[in-house]
């Protein structure tokens, strides 16, 4: 089966985000960017399914600025076959991303879409589920294991109380959680090879999707600061402190 993997270019998870002084957003000028970690897990899972012979072709898609090509190239170096960049400098909200992805699904006809569960910038946790709803497909959100089971897909999900396993008709959307796999690092030869893999360049207008935002940013502010407290000398001092503030 063919798999579509949407990947988002986001701030590197090791960088501490800084709010812009004018309160208009987070400062991303000259900040190191990376593939969203949950998208790396999604690519890795697609590649493993291909290595097992379950998957035949992996298409990596990103919606974002020209630089998102680099993000797609990482996916290609990990084992993706080809890419699609839907290029825009606009801020595209999850609902619009899902609508564009639905159009790509119509054209590409994959049997499975694997997204990340959450982009670590907007922390929305929406796109995969929205895509599934638009397509009227079933979903396995927050997956920690995926197996093909006859004509169904068995997905184990990380839920608040533990783990839940569901069986999905195909085609389906799966979103990845942290325990699904540990993504590989692309090797240098594979990075070189990935440079020759094709990336199809598109725009939102090619799909007839209105990406005008539904949400207006009023402001972006620093969170309430927490001051460092004090170091205590030993266990007795800790217990005394906790008692004095009524915490125990």
């Amino acid at each position: 089966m063919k798999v579509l993997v949407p990947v988002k270019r986001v701030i590197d998870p090791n960088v501490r985000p800084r709010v812009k002084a004018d309160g208009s957003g987070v400062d991303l000028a000259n900040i190191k960017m990376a593939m969203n970690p949950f998208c790396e897990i999604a690519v890795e899972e697609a590649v493993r399914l291909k290595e097992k012979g379950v998957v035949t072709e992996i298409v990596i898609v990103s919606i974002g600025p020209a630089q998102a090509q680099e993000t797609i190239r990482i996916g290609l170096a990990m084992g993706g076959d080809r890419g699609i960049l839907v290029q825009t400098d606009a801020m595209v909200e999850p609902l619009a991303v899902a609508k564009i992805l639905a159009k790509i699904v119509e054209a590409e006809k994959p049997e499975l879409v694997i997204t990340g569960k959450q982009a670590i910038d907007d922390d929305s946790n929406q796109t995969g589920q929205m895509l599934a709803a638009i397509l009227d497909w079933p979903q396995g959100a927050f997956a920690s294991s995926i197996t093909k089971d006859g004509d169904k897909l068995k997905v184990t999900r990380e839920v608040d109380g533990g783990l839940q396993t569901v069986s999905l008709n195909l085609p389906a959307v799966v979103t990845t959680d942290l325990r699904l796999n540990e993504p590989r690092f692309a090797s240098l030869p594979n990075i070189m090879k990935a440079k020759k893999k094709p990336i199809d360049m598109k725009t939102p207008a090619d799909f007839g999707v209105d990406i005008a935002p539904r949400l207006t940013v009023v402001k972006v502010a620093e969170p309430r600061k927490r001051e460092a407290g004090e170091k205590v000398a030993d266990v007795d001092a800790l217990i005394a402190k906790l008692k004095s503030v009524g915490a125990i």
Partner: protein
Amino acid sequence: MAVLVLAEHSNAALNDATGKTVAAAAAYGGDIDVLVAGHNAKAAADAAAKLPGVRKVLHAEGEAFSHSLAEAVEALVVPLMANYEAFFAPATTTGKNVTPRIAAKLDVMQISEISKVVSKDTFERPIYAGNAILTVKSNDAKKVVTVRGTAFQAATGSGSASVETIAAPAGPFKSAFVSEELQKSDRPELASAKRVVSGGRALASADQFNQYILPLADKLGAGVGASRAAVDAGYAPNDFQVGQTGKVVAPELYVAIGISGAIQHLAGMKDSKIIVAINKDEEAPIFQIADYGLVGDLFKIVPELTSKL
């Protein structure tokens, strides 16, 4: 027009997250109806009727709802939304699973994990692992939001709403429940515990996690949490993970043991009232937000603390 709140429950009982979501809906304003979709869930529906401020409980029964399958809940909720101007769900894994489906079907851009209702169309929510607070205004006709439980307090007191049984779509749905492995524990539930003891990578094994963290938690009557590193390494189960991509907690007392304090971990616990950190590295970032820090070897400190409490 009214707000529809999705109840989080176990069929037999209502989860705390429901009352907090009702509190967020009350801050939004208007009549509040609570949807209890379940299987043999009369007890949960009756409990929802006792929440203060609720006008009416809608109770839907069906096999597919016993495990809150997203496809089934979407099919139930979307037609109901003709009568509501807003849909509020808890930002639990159940709420996060189904709410975006409902938003997409209504052609509404969802607002995830709100921490404050500013007005009928404006909300606050943390972004970038809580390193920034976004105030955002929705231009959609209907509002679809998930609610961060730690940011709202359930109202006290007791209500007496009516319970109305509503028809549920029968399916078939494109997904089916297979099995579940739920953690059984007598300890307080992590998300709502008054105290939480969390262990990190330093515990070095599941055995030591159990040997050092659990007795301290039991002494304190605390829920148990963990860092991602501890969960990834198999020292603790996945549902213990506290952080940006795990659970968000804000107990009266949070004890971080052998946890460095990465921004992704802080995102899940920095609103705790009192934070205690035990770490052998005095430069560990966790000390920058801890009220009380104890520098030293957890394998010595934790047993001493447990025995002296």
